[in-house]
């Protein structure tokens, strides 16, 4: 091998920076309302972002993860509290530009696979592999007055949520999203029984940490999510009305305290950047929906993390919502209230939240929402989520 130290460090840096290719997708249409979807890949722990500190049992179920308001948790309504890594969102909460829906899920049950879960979330189907295209793409076809626009397919990939027969532009960003702390854990497990690879990986990780300490000022990883969100905002200021991107790093099986902080920081950064970029006038017409494939176990696991669960939490932000509330029907976390004695019991379909936002922002007819976009979904103009 004739790699110089410099090129080694440069490449090792890529390793933990995890340049997971993150496309930004857009669609243009007339009208003023904007809609942004953020897919939180890896199963965001809704019980960590929005913690039910009012549940007496909660702290005992998660001794290393749960927080009380006197430990830094930001109380929202006396029962739920926001993780301090998302403290930057509190002003939005106070302005009623932020809401959460707890105990939601897709119709996906039992198998808890990220791939199938994300497919369900993005395709909008009622069961695995029912739909091959993304629900946001199918929505384009039925949004009144939406016009097609010539595609600029700069790069090769598009995320499932906005992929399909209807035209949406895809912009590639090379920016890395998240440190891939969860990915690093997976690599560690992948190499656990192969000492040669495990040793090589250890060395690479150490070199990466060294390289990061030597990184040029102003190249903090957090700025990379800001780049994505800022690009999305700028496109929405032009004639684009829908944007979609992802944030990775939520698969917190091990030492969740550190990993979750980072991912929640990215989500906060993304929303604040969107708001700042859009400016007060456009922000007023905007809804941001951040959602994940499923939640995580109510009890922490043996390594200070949580495993794949079912019920989770989604986030709504924007000047177009009536926020400052945690919505949804709380199922409780007592002994007989959990799904399969492990997961938060879902009490609402996350697709209903998405359907409500499509109706609210673009007048998508309910009949289309329940037939074409989210087959099998129960949705009407009386939906609780239309009060947001």
């Amino acid at each position, binding site marked *: *091998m*004739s*790699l110089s130290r410099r*090129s*080694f460090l440069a*490449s*090792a840096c*890529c*390793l933990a920076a*995890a*340049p*997971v*290719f993150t496309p930004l997708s857009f669609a243009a249409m007339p009208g003023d309302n904007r809609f942004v979807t953020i897919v939180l*890949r*890896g*199963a965001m722990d809704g019980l960590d972002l929005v913690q039910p500190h009012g549940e007496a049992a909660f702290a005992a179920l998660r001794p290393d993860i749960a927080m009380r308001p006197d430990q830094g948790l930001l109380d929202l309504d006396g029962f739920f509290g926001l993780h301090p890594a998302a403290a930057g969102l509190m002003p939005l909460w106070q302005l009623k530009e932020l809401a959460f829906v707890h105990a939601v899920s897709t119709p996906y049950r039992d198998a808890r*696979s*990220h*791939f199938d879960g*994300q497919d369900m979330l993005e395709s909008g189907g009622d069961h695995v592999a029912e739909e091959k295209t993304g629900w946001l793409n199918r929505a384009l076809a039925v949004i009144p007055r939406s016009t097609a626009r010539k595609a600029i*397919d700069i*790069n*090769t*990939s*598009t*995320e499932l949520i906005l992929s399909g027969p209807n035209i949406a532009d895809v912009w590639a960003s090379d920016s890395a999203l998240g440190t*891939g702390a*969860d*990915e690093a854990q*997976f*690599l560690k*497990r*992948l*190499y*656990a*029984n*192969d000492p*040669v*690879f495990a040793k*090589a*990986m*250890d*060395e*690479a990780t150490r*070199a*990466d940490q060294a390289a990061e300490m030597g990184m040029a000022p102003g190249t903090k990883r957090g700025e990379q999510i800001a780049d994505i969100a800022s690009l999305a905002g700028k496109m929405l200021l032009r004639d684009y009305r829908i944007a979609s991107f*992802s944030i*990775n*790093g*939520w*698969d917190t099986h091990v030492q969740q305290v550190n990993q979750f902080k980072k991912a929640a920081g990215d989500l906060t950064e993304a929303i604040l950047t969107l708001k700042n970029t859009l400016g007060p006038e456009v922000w007023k017409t905007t809804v941001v929906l951040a959602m994940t494939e499923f939640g995580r176990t109510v009890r922490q696991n043996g390594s200070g993390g949580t495993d*794949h669960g079912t019920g989770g939490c989604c986030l709504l932000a924007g000047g177009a919502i009536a926020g400052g509330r945690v919505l949804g029907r709380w199922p409780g976390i007592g002994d007989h209230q959990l799904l399969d004695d492990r997961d938060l019991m879902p009490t609402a379909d996350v697709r209903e939240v998405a359907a409500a936002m499509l109706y609210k922002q673009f007048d998508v007819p309910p009949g289309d929402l329940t037939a074409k976009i989210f087959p099998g979904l129960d949705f009407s103009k009386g939906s609780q989520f239309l009060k947001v």
Partner: protein
Amino acid sequence: MSVSFQTMAAIRFGYGFKPGEPVPSDKRALLEQVPVGAANAPLFPIGGIEARRKAIADAADALQAIRKGNAADPDKRAAENAMYRRLGEMSQRDIDARIAQAVFSPNGFYERLASFWVNHFSVSLQKTQQMRLIVPLFEAEAIRPNIGKPFPELLKAVTRHPAMLIYLDQAQSIGPDSQVGLKQKKGLNENLARELIELHTLGAGSGYSQTDVRSAATVLTGIALDRQGLTAEFKPGMSEPGSHAVLGVSYGAKPRSEADYLAMLDNLALHPKTAQHICRKLVAHFIADQPPQPMIDVMADCWNNTKGDLSAVYATMLDHPDAWSGEGAKARSPFDFVVAGLRALNLPRNPLADSAAIPSLTVADAGQGMEGPAASPAPTAPPPSSAPPAGSAAPMAADSRAVPVPAGNAGHDGNATAAMPTPAAMDAAKHDATAPMGASMTAGTASSPVGDPAAEVLRRKQEQAALEAIFYVPSGLGVYALRRMGQPVWQPSSPAGFPDNFDAWINASALSERLAWSRRAIGRYGKQTDPRQFLKDTLGDAAREDTIRVVSQAPSRVTGLTLVLASPDFNRR
């Protein structure tokens, strides 16, 4: 055998599974790939063998004409640099085509053998400017057609090839007492003779002496290149008179002739030490860094009994039970990793690469970038960001000769059928092409005066983009990736070739590079793939339980796919 025959055949003896490509079902099918592969022209040199011979001759003439000029003349230097740049472009395309050859060929065992032998008979295209054109020709005409034949034929074809004569300085070796030697007061260069014995045949430490090396060098005197560097000629006036003993056998009489060194090559090729040396290398390459001696012995016996019939030796290797056990002991080299990764991701074929113009080399157009549309007056070239690249390919293809695909190829080698642009390939070309060809070909020809550095940089950038558009593999995943990974194609750092042991290729920096490569490649070609299916398709029953579990739990599709390519199972073979 804990892993199926098909999996072993694909991973240990080939470049891995490729979706839709049939896998050999038995040893006979695997061996049958050797004559089929040898009968088919590879994708390189771009333009084919005859066009390449002409290009080498043209380049020699053109460089000679340029060099006649005044050294201080800036036009001369510019013309020279333009020629070098053209050679560099042609070389990059050949490297790309070599990667593509391994990716698209359905004859994985043959392709792996070709790589083995190219590394055994290492030459580097960095030796001289012309070597950038000659090395691909060397592999195509000296190595590939001969790797299923008796070893003496392979050895003779290789040793006499201009690439080897230039790389190991034989062109400068002259018998000190020959006519030319006496007149010019020049003498021996031992380089080729030493490597011939130490690396190509008997092997280091096999008992030969310095005297044998010197005598072999003496026997080799007289081999020279013709003026254009295209063919080896025997020039008696350069050969050392008399008879010379190598390993106890005397060669040479009056008059000296090429029969002398050819007889020496035959004897070296069939020496029992050679059989041991090369059979050991074959087993070390395919099966284990520490090859089992009994297996080597059986193969060497076959070598000795068949006068070095390589096909028989390969058959003996595959017949040995050790060929089908102990899987995963070897590491995939960077080339193997990249090719296997692109195969797993089912890299679409870029039809532009199949139909692009063959650049020729003349002094007249040396300053104009690659030939083709540049030759036609096209003053109204579109700006780089407009015209759709796919459309701009049409005038180029119409204007040029297509890369010839040998007739009778279709039945055996998927290359021929794949040459028909499929919709998927067209789509890929659209993505791969990042700049319109017409624009880059004409930009800066007459309008950029020498001495305008900005225009020069712009022109080069456009040329590079045009080049990318006609690559089979985006250079970040091919040409440049292999350089970063430490195994640049046709550029070994010594005549001993690239290392072939596990530790050379699996370490912290290598793993980082492979992860980065995997992410880039998956971002480009793998987004719609389910990681669990990808794992099954890519590793078959070679996937361990750990890998199956970790991949199936990955936090996202991209991570899952990355974990497959990063897994020990994928990086071992």
